[in-house]
């Protein structure tokens, strides 16, 4: 296994047969690989998310990160697109599921796919990764500090989303959760409530909460970056995907 890869912008069919843009990265080695749909954070389809997508390809996975803000702000810079989507209330849940389904279908239809597919999401994408795993047949899912799986946005927030912990019974695959102990959304109490729901539903899960880390500790281009938490988190991700994606 080398770390050679190819990355490019592609278009794929998402929710409602809409064509949306996506960042695709693939290993250049011969063989068949597991697939990862990367769900971007609330600040959008930015450089950091594309770097993470390429990192998965360098580690032997087919990876794609769809631009969930394609419809509202085609061609806009990530921060402008995120501002518009924030003002409009966020990405609707049903549309998110349709876009992830389209991205998963795109990856598993590639000749190099081994047929297994996972989601990973950061920030708002963490909640959306859990939502996708409760709505679609997946092989694994990772929730990186996703808010409002448990709990609701504060009064006055324009985000039109609510808690989805009641969907836990429908979780289709093992779940890896990576959280910052200093985060408020999700707070340690929110994480504990989700863990209790997973126990009650007898689901396979693995949670890690990092002391000294808050929200967005994987984001290398932000002051919230916590190298020790991120290094351990990546190791957990490689072990988890190695177990369930067979790559």
């Amino acid at each position, binding site marked *: 296994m080398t770390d050679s890869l190819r990355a490019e912008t592609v278009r794929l069919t998402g929710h409602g047969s809409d064509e949306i843009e996506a960042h695709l990265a693939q290993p250049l080695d011969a063989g068949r690989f597991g697939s990862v749909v990367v769900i971007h954070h609330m*600040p959008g389809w930015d450089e950091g998310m594309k770097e993470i997508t390429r990192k998965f390809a360098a580690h032997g996975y087919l990876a794609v990160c769809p631009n969930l803000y394609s419809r509202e702000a085609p061609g806009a810079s990530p*921060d402008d697109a995120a501002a*518009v989507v*924030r003002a*409009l209330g966020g990405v609707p849940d049903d549309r998110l599921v349709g876009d992830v389904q389209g991205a998963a279908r795109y990856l598993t239809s590639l000749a190099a796919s081994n047929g297994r597919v996972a989601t990973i999401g950061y920030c708002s994408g963490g909640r959306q990764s859990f939502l996708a795993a409760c709505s679609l047949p997946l092989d694994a899912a990772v929730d990186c500090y996703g*808010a409002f799986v448990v709990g609701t946005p*504060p009064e*006055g927030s324009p*985000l039109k989303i609510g808690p989805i912990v009641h969907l836990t019974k429908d979780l289709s695959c093992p779940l890896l959760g990576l959280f910052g102990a200093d985060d408020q959304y999700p707070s340690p109490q929110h994480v504990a409530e989700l863990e209790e729901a997973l126990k009650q539903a007898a689901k396979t899960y693995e949670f890690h909460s990092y002391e000294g880390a808050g929200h967005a500790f994987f984001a290398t281009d932000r002051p*919230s970056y916590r190298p020790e938490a991120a290094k351990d988190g990546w190791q957990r991700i490689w072990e988890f995907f190695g177990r369930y994606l067979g790559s």
Partner: protein
Amino acid sequence: MCTYQTEKLALKGSGKGPAGWFSLSRATVYFDHPAHYSAEHSLNIDFLNLDDGALSRVAVELDPASARELARAILETLPAVPEH
């Protein structure tokens, strides 16, 4: 953390974005991660016209003390202006 603390307001006026001047229709004010300013959180304001799409946006990301000073300066300036 993402604070998700957001205020939305309708407003009248104009702003100058990447494509030139445009009419403003609303602003969102929130305390959250900045895209550019080097801090974990900042007071962010987006001046928008959603009818025009994402290019009609003027954005600022301020440290909290600066945001308070800006708010104070606006409120101290306005009493000298006739009500409309």
